[in-house]
Structures are given as structure tokens and as C-alpha cells.
């Protein structure tokens, strides 16, 4: 078997990479795919908490790379889906503990046993980013519809285009009312700038936070709006043609540019 390795990245921190990784992983597992989630954020381990698996960790990614254990020993099996696994990050090491070449080897090995290898990338564009991206065949970039995450997403897309094809985009935490009031960028504003394929839009939803704290991601809750959105994104990843419900077009703020004034 040779699975698809997808890195989930954003540049900016706090836009929902880890939450998205957990939801996409669970969503794909619900479609009976064999999935492994790799927490690439060495030193700031979070994915285990969102997944509600933190008490089951024995070994971690750095242990595997250093040869202190076998890959299968480090994989934490999900409590809901036996064919979903987590390869946790180390909380006590630094990003420099591994290098891109080691990451490539590890991901190649995981691709033999899983349909999907989802890699949760740390914020930033330094060593941690280069490690996380190294083994991936595809990338999903997450942004919120705010000016600075969009600019950082743009930077990351530029970097990704050097090493792989165009990434796909998820716009997270879209608040339709704020867009209509012109207080937030709209979907079309973001797409005009980033000019990549839109994989989906996740609406702003308090349940995401509650679910993250409980270790039970929203994609498992068919009644939540954000959970449904993740469900649709998962089907799109699997190649289904699922329309994206039009949340909005253009918003405000981006074009706070106006007439140019000159000065010497």
C-alpha cells in the first residue's frame, strides 16, 4: 500500500491546524480509511489532547527517529476507531532533534501501512516547518479570514510551491455576520489573494473549543455546523464532488487602501 501524505500547515499559529488535523483524521477514519496522525510540533505537543489520547502515550516521534523504539510501538491507537493511530510529538525535545531526511524516511515507512498520513505542522517557517513538510506529497493550508493569517498563508504557499504542487486551502472560523457587516474578510477576498483551490470553509463555532477540551473533535458530532463542514471537506479529500455552501463573497478591511497620498 502507498498512502497519501498530507501536511496541514498555516504559517501563523492559532488558526486551527491541530484541530483541523484531528477532525480530518477522524473524518477519514469514519470513511473506513486507515489513517495515522503525525504530530510534527515537537516541543509543543497538542494533537494528543485534542484527540483525547494524552494518557496513552508511551513513546514518541523522536524516540522512533532515534531508534529507541519501533514505529508500531509509538503509535497510539484511537479509542473510537481501531484503524486510526496517532504518532505523538515529544514534549521534551527541540525542533532540531530531527531533520527533514529522517522525517522523509519516517513518512515513507508510514505510507506503506496507512491510506492517509496527516502531518500536523508547527507554526512558523523554520526548521519545524521544513521537517513537517519534508515527507509530504500534498499540503493543506489553513487560514482564518483575517489580514495577518492570510499574509502568512501567502508566504507559506510561496514556500510550498517550491517543493510540491499547489496546496489546497481551508478557511477556518468564518463568521458570516461579521463579513456581511464588512468587519471581516470574505471568502472571495481570501481567494483573490491566495489564488489556490478552496477545499472548504469551516464556520466559527464555539463547539470546536468545547470539543477540543473534551478530546472529542466536532466532526464526530453530526449536529454541529463546523462538524458538518469538516465532514464535507473529508469527502472532497476522498475525491467526491461536494459543493461548498456559499457563505459570503467580499467582506471589508482588506481594501483599506484608498487613494494614495504622496510625500517627499
Amino acid at each position, binding site marked *: 500500500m502507498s498512502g497519501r501524505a498530507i501536511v496541514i500547515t498555516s504559517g501563523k499559529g492559532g488558526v486551527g491546524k491541530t484541530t483541523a488535523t484531528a477532525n480530518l483524521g477522524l473524518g477519514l477514519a469514519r470513511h473506513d480509511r486507515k489513517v495515522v496522525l503525525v504530530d510534527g510540533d515537537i516541543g509543543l505537543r497538542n494533537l494528543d489532547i485534542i484527540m483525547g489520547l494524552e494518557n496513552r502515550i508511551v513513546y514518541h516521534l523522536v524516540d522512533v527517529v532515534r531508534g529507541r523504539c519501533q514505529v508500531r510501538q509509538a503509535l497510539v491507537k484511537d479509542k473510537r476507531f481501531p484503524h486510526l493511530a496517532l504518532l505523538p510529538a515529544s514534549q521534551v525535545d527541540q525542533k532540531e532533534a530531527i531533520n527533514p531526511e529522517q522525517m522523509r524516511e519516517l513518512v515513507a515507512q508510514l505510507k506503506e501501512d496507512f491510506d492517509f498520513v496527516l502531518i500536523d505542522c508547527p507554526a512558523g517557517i523554520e526548521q519545524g516547518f521544513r521537517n513537517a513538510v519534508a515527507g509530504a506529497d500534498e499540503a493543506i493550508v489553513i487560514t482564518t479570514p483575517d489580514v495577518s493569517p492570510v499574509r502568512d498563508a501567502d508566504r507559506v504557499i510561496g514556500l510550498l510551491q517550491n517543493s510540491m504542487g499547489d496546496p489546497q486551502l481551508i478557511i477556518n472560523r468564518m463568521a458570516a455576520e461579521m463579513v456581511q457587516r464588512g468587519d471581516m474578510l470574505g471568502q472571495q477576498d481570501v481567494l483573490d489573494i491566495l489564488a489556490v483551490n478552496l477545499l472548504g470553509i469551516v464556520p466559527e463555532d464555539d463547539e470546536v473549543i468545547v470539543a477540543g477540551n473534551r478530546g472529542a473533535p466536532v466532526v464526530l458530532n453530526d449536529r454541529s455546523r463546523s462538524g458538518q463542514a469538516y465532514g464535507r471537506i473529508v469527502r472532497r479529500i476522498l475525491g467526491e464532488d461536494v459543493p461548498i455552501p456559499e457563505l459570503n463573497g467580499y467582506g471589508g478591511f482588506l481594501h483599506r487602501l*484608498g*487613494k494614495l497620498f504622496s510625500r517627499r
Partner: protein
Amino acid sequence: MAQRGGVDLFTIKGLKSGPTFLFDDQASFPAVLTAVEEELSRSNGFFRDSPVILHFGSRLLNKEEWWNLKDVLHREGLQPRYAVAVAPASRELLYKEGLPVREHLPLPAHESKKIQATAAGGSTALYLRRGFRSGQKEVFDGEVVLVGDVNQGAEILAGGDIIIVGTLRGMVHAGYPDNAEAVVIALSLVPLQLRIGPFIARADEEQNHRRPQRPEIARIKDERIVIEPYQGKL
């Protein structure tokens, strides 16, 4: 003043175009560098923060030499405005290092017009068939034609005009460093800041929702940058 067989290794001249540092182009570079350090320490910070022109003559400058010189200049608080170098390889190096370059010092007004005319006839342009994202930069001593968008956080510096067949949101500097004749044309001209020659314009923060529906041109008129609809001719 440091000399080599009666020739000055380093001279500072107050020319009309600005204070100009002339580096001897025959002597070894370390010798020149020593002369620069001596002369500048003698000047007691007189040139601190003043924009200076660096004249390398026909020297073939390498990267290490330039970095060493840059260190010295930086230490003395000097801001190179542009460099003059006869050797094309030196010009290319300096331009890639982010310093505007010229082949010779600007000539008096009546002569410079003639030079510009020939330059326009045989000018070089860089054609870029791709967009520029945040963090990407292009520096070119000539006109730049770009098919794609230039996003916020991207930078393009051109010695001449800049034509963007797409949306301009990032920072472009046409006529870099001081060619006020240069223009910027874009299908959608919405940068936060725009530079032409010695002028800088910034977006009006009061105005929101500017979404120009047609191509526009930015140029210098009466000592300021103005933006007008592009009517199909300059």
C-alpha cells in the same frame, strides 16, 4: 590621505549629485579598505546618516569585498544611495545585494536627456510570468513586466517602469532609486505603499473599500505621486 604611487586610494568628493566616495580601481581591495577606514575615522562621523554614492570605477568587485566594505560603511553609519560601477559583473553583484547601480554618474541636465532617449530605444525589460507572494522579491535594473498578482509582503524594485498585468497589493518601487520619470501600471492598483524614484506614497487610511474596476497608472506630477485611470497611452 592614503596614497599609492601618488594616487589616492580613497577620495571623498562633494559632487552636485551628492557626497561621492571614489575607490581606486587598480590597488588591492584590502589596501583600499584600510584607506577608507583611516579616512572615515578622520572625518569624525561627519558623513553619518548622509546618503553617499559609491564609485568603484572599473573594479571587478567580489561579494566578500563588498561585504567587508559594507561592514565598514555600516559601522560609520553611512547609507549608500547607489553605486557607480563600469564593470557589468560588479553592477550585477551590487544590484543583487540590493544596492541600486549606475554605469556612470548622472550627467548635467542637457546631456542626460540625450542619454535617456538612447536608453529608451535599447532598454532592457524583465518579463515575469508568475505571481509574487508574501516574502518574494525581485530587483532589476530596467523595466519589469509581470503577469500575475503582487501580494502584500512581496517587493519589486525596478530601475524603470513596472507593469503589472494583475492586482498590485505589495510594495513596488519604480524608477529605483531616483528616476522620477518612471510609471507603475496595474490592472488593479491597490498597494498600501507605492514608490516612484525619490517619492513615497501611502494609502489613505480613511478610505475603505477601494476596488478599482479598471487599469490605473501611477506617476509623478508636480512633485507628488498621482493615480489616474489608464487611458491606453502614457
